[in-house]
C-alpha cells in the first residue's frame, strides 16, 4: 500500500469532500450540539446531585494518631460542629481499621490526623491532614470538602499564622468528583458522532453509485480514502472546538451554582468541580483520538456494508455495546479494579483508554507513562483499523 501524498489532485479531492460535508447542515449541527450537550448536561446533573445530596448527613470515620493540642482541638471542633458539617455519625477507628476499609473500598470519608501533627504545626506552622474519600459518591465528596474548609478555618483561627495542608486520597482516583457522567457522555457522543459521515462517505457512496465513477479517476484508492478521512478530521476538529465551548459552559454553570454558598465554600467548590483550564486541551486531544478510533472502526464497517442503513446500524451496535459496558463500569469506580480476563477485555477496548485518560486528567492523578500508554493504544488501534479499512477499500468487491 502506497503512502498517500498531498498532491494537487488529493487536495482537490479533499476540497470536494470537505465542501460536501459542510453542506450537510444536520451533520455539522450534530457535531456542534453533541459535545456541548455532554458537558452542559454534566453541569446540570452535577448541580442537581450536589443540591440533592449535600444537605444529607454522611458517615465519617476519623483516626487520631497524634495526642497533641492541635489534633485534639481539631477533633473536638469537628465533633462539636457535626450538625453544621452534616456528619452523622462520626466514628472513631484505628489506623489499621481505616486502611482495611480503604482496601475493601467500603469507606466514604476517612479523616486521618497523622502522628506528629501538632509537633509539625508548632515547629513549622505547617502540617498535613489527610482525607480519604470515595469520590464516586457526590455526598461523600461534598462532606470531605466541608471538612477540608472547616479544618483550615480551625487551624488558621489561631493568632499565629499557620497553614494546614489537606491531602485528598481518593479511593477511586479515576472516578474523581463525579466526572464519570461527563466522561460517559463524551465517550458516547464521540463514538456515535462520526457514524453518519463515515457511513455516508463509504457505504453511502456505494449505495448512491457514486463510488464507481470516483474509483476510475486517476488517483490511488489510498488517496481517495485519505481525502475522505481528512474531511472526517475537519469534522472532529469542529467537535473538539465545541468540546472546549461545552467545558467552559459547564464551568460557568458551576460558578453560578456556588454563588449562593458561603464565601469560604465558593472557591473550594469552584476548585473542586470545575475543569481546570490547563486540562481542556488534553480533553480535546483525547476526544480527537476517540473520534479517530470511531472513524477507523466506521471505515472498516462501511467498507464491508452494502448500504448506508446497514453500515449505520452495525456501527451503532458495535460502538454502543462496549461504550455502555465501559461507561457503566466507569460509574462503579475504577476500571482497573476489575481483574483477570475481564480486565484484559476492558483494556482491549480503545474506549477504556479514553476513560482512563479522561479520569486521570480530570482527577489530576495521571502519570506521563499512564497517559502515554492510553494515547499510544488509541493511536495504534486507529492505525490498525485504518489499515484494514484501506485494504478493504482496495478490494474489487467494493463496487459490487
Amino acid at each position: 500500500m502506497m503512502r498517500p501524498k498531498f498532491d494537487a489532485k488529493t487536495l482537490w479531492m479533499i476540497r470536494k469532500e470537505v465542501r460536501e460535508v459542510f453542506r450537510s447542515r444536520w451533520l455539522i449541527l450534530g457535531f456542534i450540539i453533541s459535545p456541548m450537550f455532554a458537558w452542559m448536561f454534566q453541569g446540570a446533573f452535577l448541580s442537581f446531585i450536589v443540591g440533592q445530596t449535600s444537605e444529607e448527613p454522611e458517615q465519617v470515620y476519623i483516626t487520631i494518631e497524634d495526642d497533641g493540642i492541635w489534633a485534639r482541638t481539631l477533633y473536638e471542633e469537628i465533633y462539636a460542629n457535626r450538625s453544621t458539617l452534616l456528619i452523622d455519625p462520626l466514628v472513631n477507628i484505628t489506623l489499621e481499621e481505616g486502611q482495611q476499609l480503604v482496601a475493601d473500598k467500603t469507606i466514604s470519608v476517612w479523616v486521618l490526623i497523622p502522628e506528629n501533627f501538632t509537633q509539625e504545626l508548632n515547629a513549622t506552622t505547617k502540617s498535613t491532614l489527610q482525607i480519604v474519600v470515595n469520590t464516586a459518591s457526590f455526598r461523600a465528596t461534598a462532606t470531605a470538602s466541608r471538612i477540608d474548609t472547616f479544618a483550615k478555618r480551625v487551624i488558621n483561627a489561631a493568632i499565629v499564622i499557620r497553614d494546614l495542608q489537606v491531602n485528598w486520597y481518593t479511593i477511586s482516583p479515576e472516578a474523581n468528583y463525579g466526572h464519570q457522567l461527563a466522561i460517559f457522555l463524551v465517550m458516547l457522543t464521540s463514538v456515535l458522532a462520526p457514524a453518519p459521515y463515515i457511513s455516508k462517505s463509504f457505504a453511502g457512496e456505494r449505495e448512491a453509485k457514486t463510488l464507481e465513477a470516483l474509483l476510475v479517476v486517476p488517483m490511488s484508492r489510498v488517496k481517495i480514502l485519505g481525502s475522505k478521512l481528512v474531511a472526517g478530521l475537519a469534522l472532529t476538529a469542529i467537535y473538539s472546538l465545541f468540546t472546549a465551548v461545552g467545558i467552559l459552559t459547564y464551568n460557568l454553570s458551576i460558578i453560578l451554582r456556588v454563588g449562593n454558598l458561603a464565601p469560604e465554600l465558593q472557591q473550594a467548590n469552584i476548585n473542586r468541580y470545575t475543569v481546570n483550564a490547563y486540562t481542556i486541551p488534553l480533553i480535546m486531544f483525547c476526544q480527537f483520538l476517540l473520534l479517530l478510533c470511531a472513524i477507523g472502526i466506521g471505515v472498516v464497517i462501511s467498507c464491508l456494508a452494502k448500504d448506508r442503513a446497514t453500515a449505520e446500524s452495525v456501527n451503532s451496535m458495535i460502538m454502543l455495546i462496549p461504550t455502555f459496558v465501559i461507561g457503566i463500569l466507569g460509574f462503579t469506580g475504577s476500571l482497573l479494579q476489575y481483574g483477570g480476563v475481564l480486565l484484559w477485555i476492558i483494556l482491549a477496548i480503545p474506549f477504556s483508554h479514553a476513560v482512563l485518560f479522561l479520569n486521570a486528567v480530570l482527577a489530576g492523578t495521571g502519570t506521563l507513562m499512564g497517559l502515554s500508554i492510553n494515547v499510544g493504544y488509541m493511536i495504534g488501534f486507529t492505525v490498525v483499523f485504518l489499515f484494514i479499512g484501506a485494504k478493504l477499500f482496495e478490494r474489487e468487491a467494493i463496487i459490487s
Partner: protein
Amino acid sequence: MAFEEDVVIKTEGLTKIFEKGKKRQVIALDNVDLEIKRGEVFGLLGTNGAGKTTLIRVLVGLLTPTEGKAFVLGRDVTEDIDYIRDRVSLLPQEAGIYDRLTARENLVYYGGFYGIPEEELNKRADKLLEIVGLKDKEHYQVKGFSGGMKRKVLVARALVIEPEIIFLDEPTTGIDTLGARVVRNLLKMLSSEQKRTIILTTHDLNEVSELCDRVGILNDGKLIATGKPSQLEEKFRAANLEEVFTGLVTGEGVYGGSTP
C-alpha cells in the same frame, strides 16, 4: 502484443470469473477477443448479466482479469492503469451523482481529479451545460433534479475531461426522448468532429443503429458476434439488428441465416 496503429482497445482471451463462496463460480467474461479502433463508436449489446458492464470495468481497471490480456491505448490495464485512467472517462450504468453539489460543481470537481486547471474546467463546464440544456440550472444542487436531468449532468461530467476514450454504460437510460436526442447528437459530434472513441452499452437497438460504427454482442460472457450493424444484418440475412440480436442470444437462429 502487436497493435495496429489505430487500435485503442484490444483484448485477447479475456476472462473474468467471480468466486461466489467456495463452490460456486460465475464466468462473467469468457475468452473475449476484441479490437476497437480510434474514433469508433462501438456498441456493446447483450441481455442483463451478459458481461457488458464487467468488460467495461475490466477495461477501466476496476476489475482485474482472471485470465487473458486487456490493452487500452496500448497499455496493459493491469500494469499501466494510471496512464489509462488519465485518458478515459466512465459513465457507469447506475452512476450516482453528488446530490449536495451543484450541476457545475459536479463537472468541475470531477475534472479537477484529472489535474485540469479550474479556469479551463469552468470554460468546458459552460459549454457542456449549454449543450445538455442545463445552463440555467448550473448553480442548483442536483438533489432537486429529475432522473433525466441528473443523467445529463453525468454525461456532461464524463465529457468534461475531454477523454480519448469514453465508456458509456447505458447513457440515455432514464432520459426523456428530447434529452436522449441531445445526448446522441453530442456523442455523434464527439465521434465525427473530435475523433473520440466511444464504447457504449445500451438496450436501445435503434440507438445502436443510429450511433454505432460497429457492435459486439455478448451472451453469457462470450463475444458471439462483432461487426458493423449492416454487415451483421447481411451476414445473418436479418431485416434489422433486433432480429440479429434476438436470434443470437436466444439461440433460436436468425431468419434466413444461422447462429454461429
